[in-house]
């Protein structure tokens, strides 16, 4: 039998629904914008993004906020597509972090 994915939660027991909201900060909106632009330009597809969110380890899936999952998945998708490399991103993250200090 195929095991149900961690993201496939319909019908599972769960707690009370808390109708929480927060105003999406700029960085979250920019993640969304990058996704829309790259999708619109045909560089990536919604299914790749979905697959990479679903591939997150269960504890990360539960712990990460929505756009934290998106940026993780977007990065992974772009690496898989060969549009960026892990090394390039690593270098850039180091550079940005030092600049911010």
């Amino acid at each position, binding site marked *: 039998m195929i095991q149900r994915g961690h993201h496939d939660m319909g019908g599972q027991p769960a707690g009370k629904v808390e109708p929480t*909201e927060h105003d999406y900060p700029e960085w979250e909106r920019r993640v969304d914008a990058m996704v829309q632009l790259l999708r619109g330009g045909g560089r990536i597809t919604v299914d790749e993004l979905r697959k990479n969110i679903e591939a997150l380890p269960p504890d990360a899936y539960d712990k990460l906020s929505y756009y934290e999952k998106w940026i993780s998945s977007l990065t992974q998708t772009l690496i898989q597509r060969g549009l960026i490399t892990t090394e390039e991103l690593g270098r850039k993250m180091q550079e940005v972090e030092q600049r911010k200090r």
Partner: protein
Amino acid sequence: MSDRGTYQPFTYYQLMETSLRELLVEKGLVTDEQVNAEVAAMRARQPERGARVVAKAWIDDAFRQRLLKNGTAACEELGLEIPALRLVVVENTPQVHNAIVCTLCSCYPRVLLGIPPDWYKSRNYRSRMVREPRAVLAEFGLRIPEAVQIRVHDSTADMRYLVLPMRPQGTEGWDEARLAGIVTRDSMIGVAVPTIG
């Protein structure tokens, strides 16, 4: 990570966002102007757009029928583009109350409603809505009479649902703009109903 409601000045994921964006700009895959324009367009997509669709359907029966037949095409009539998505509009009646969930993720007609709220993407809503919708709706303060059937629609990445709520009694003679004013985001996914006063 322990406090997800507060955003620290620069978290690991924010660092990732800034770095990825700069990398994509350097590679010529996106420009800062495009990103800023997309963010601005996102801010313009608010539930008022969906409310316009609902109000129009309440006062124009021919439009209502077109909307129920082909949601995407009917929205385009109002200048609301729904790119590459099939929009299915489901109508509440005295016998049937509709509600929407995306059990697998977060698929929601954001062109009409804006970015979905956090709870819509939460484990609790996604898990329980398909099994015990009446109980979940009651937690939202919406008590659906036992005689009314509840129909829950589960979205996918390629198609979205919008609930066409019932026009409340006491709104006879109201114009479209006034009607649109009582149509809330939550009423268009079926966890609330429009009310007056």
